[in-house]
């Protein structure tokens, strides 16, 4: 791939615009990956990358992907919280790249929980107000 410029990027964004506008409802799906020291050490960057790649592969271009600091569940990093309509807000632990792909298929598309990875909510002293 040759070196892209910001102009190339602008053109690529323009060509996606119509497709993305049609998918406005996907914006209600929010994936938050814990990226504190604990998350990074446990491989959260690979988890984040797996979400980005898989969302692209499945053409879920308007889903929101965010990062946050330590959520207080350092023992089960990488942790990921999913917010979406028709599903309870869910915190998953031990989310490897492979589990990230499963979350997209099962939780987001099939609306089924991944029982083996569900965690309690973050410790009360860690939650940001």
């Amino acid at each position, binding site marked *: 791939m040759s070196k*892209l410029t910001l102009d190339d990027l602008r053109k690529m*964004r323009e060509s996606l615009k119509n497709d993305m506008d049609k998918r406005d409802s996907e914006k209600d799906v929010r994936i938050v990956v814990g990226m504190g020291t*604990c998350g990074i*050490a446990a491989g959260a960057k690979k988890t984040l990358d797996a979400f980005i790649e898989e*969302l*692209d592969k499945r053409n879920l*271009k308007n889903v929101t992907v965010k990062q946050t600091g330590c959520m207080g569940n350092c023992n089960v990093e990488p942790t990921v919280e999913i917010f979406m309509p028709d599903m309870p807000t869910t915190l998953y632990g031990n989310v490897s790249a492979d589990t990230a792909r499963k979350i997209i298929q099962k939780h987001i598309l099939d609306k089924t929980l991944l029982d083996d990875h569900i965690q309690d909510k973050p410790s009360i002293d860690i939650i940001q107000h």
Partner: protein
Amino acid sequence: MHFTLCDFLSDIVQNAIESQATLIVVDLIETDERYKFLVADNGKGMDPVTLSKVQSPFFTDGKKHERTQGLGLPFLAQAIEQDGGAWDIRSEKDFGTSVSFAFDKSHVDTPPLGDVAQTLLQLAIFDGDHDLVVNRSCHDKKYTVVRSDLKKTLGDLSCAGNIMLAKKYIHSLEQDLINL
């Protein structure tokens, strides 16, 4: 413990983001002998007493007020102690903090560099109102990634489609840099 040098970089930049900085500048310089990193922010900074505690794994600052562990800088100090690199932190309360660190490429205990493009993408899309400027150089080639330019060009950087485009952009810059 972090696996790659890029993991240390992500950790230190995350500290800068949490310090309420509006501007963070990152330099990632690769020469024949060394990897050199600099992370400078204009966030809330630290007074000398706080600064003297940052190397302790049993100290943390900020929102996790009932927690007593902070491992980011202690991890970095430990890795550098093992392989003869160097690091430095300077901070002034209300003006900001800068952290610099360097690793010797030839030392057997130096961790691998890691995936630079993936790391720069991860840093660029981290949520917040701050701007981030990354200057990456390798020998005599260099490129710069500016978060506000990406935002201006793509719009919302938390939207999966835009993240994918940013990824292609940053990968193309890194690819061009390392193909000497």
